[in-house]
């Protein structure tokens, strides 16, 4: 019976341990990828995939990625909400892989909200 290889998991555990601190610190940025069926049908999985690639590269323990269900704005999916500490949350719309990378590099890492892609800034 084919199984996920234990060897792979062990290697992964070791490499992750070496590069990241184990102690849970504070979260400075929370990124929510909306993964309701509307989001998924519109391409949220690809957006999540691009985000995870960027996260793996950035290797920051203080950035949290969560998923949520549909928030009711289905026609603007895929939506991504970025909540950075000391900043108003921003809801991005019509996201794709490239936009996600840009939002991650500019907004999440540098604090510059990408207003061109935004649906709303929540006050």
């Amino acid at each position, binding site marked *: 019976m084919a199984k*996920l290889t234990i060897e792979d998991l062990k290697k992964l555990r070791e490499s*992750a341990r070496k590069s990241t601190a184990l102690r849970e610190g504070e979260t400075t940025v929370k990124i929510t990828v909306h993964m309701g069926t509307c989001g998924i049908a519109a391409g949220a999985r690809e957006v999540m995939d691009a985000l995870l690639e960027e996260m793996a590269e950035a290797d920051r323990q203080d950035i949290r990625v969560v998923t949520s269900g549909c928030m009711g704005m289905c026609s603007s999916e895929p939506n991504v909400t970025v909540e950075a500490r000391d900043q108003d949350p921003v809801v991005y719309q019509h996201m794709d892989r490239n936009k996600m990378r840009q939002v991650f590099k500019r907004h999440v890492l540098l604090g510059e909200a990408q207003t061109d892609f935004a649906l709303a800034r929540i006050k």
Partner: protein
Amino acid sequence: MRELSLHIMDIVENGLSAGADLIQVSIAEDRKENRLRIAVKDNGRGIPQDLLQRVLSPFYTTRTTRRVGLGLSLFREAARRCEGEFHLVSKEGEGTEVSATFRLDHIDLAPLGDMAGSLTSFIMGRPDVDFVYVHELDGKVFRMDTREVKKELDGLPINNPKVIRHLAASIRESVADLKTGADGSAAP
């Protein structure tokens, strides 16, 4: 829907809304019998007997944001369209199981889609919920159980981005191996 994985994710979301902390997705392809069977089982709060017929209506939903709930009815239609059957079994306090069968070579059968990406997205978003994914092809079986993965990770969170990406790639590879006939069992 465009992909069967979208139907499956719909049903998984139902299970999550019902408070499940264990969701089992099984896909079985039998080329000799020319059948595909998909089942999603959760241990959520279940559906009261008197609602079992109503929930299949597209106009019944527990959501408050809109008056339409298409997940179950669209899945049932997809099965019927492909000469298959649809079953919904539920027990309050225990959980619900939705299963559908399809004629495997039916022209209207949508592709399965990216199950690995879909599942790992749920795992990422809900590390408190356990998922079991079983994919069977002509008798060969691949099985992924997040409880085992978590044990093996030994404290490293399963929703660590590197882990999730690796898990998705592993699942894709192992399922592909089922098709090529390569034996994907753990290296000695």
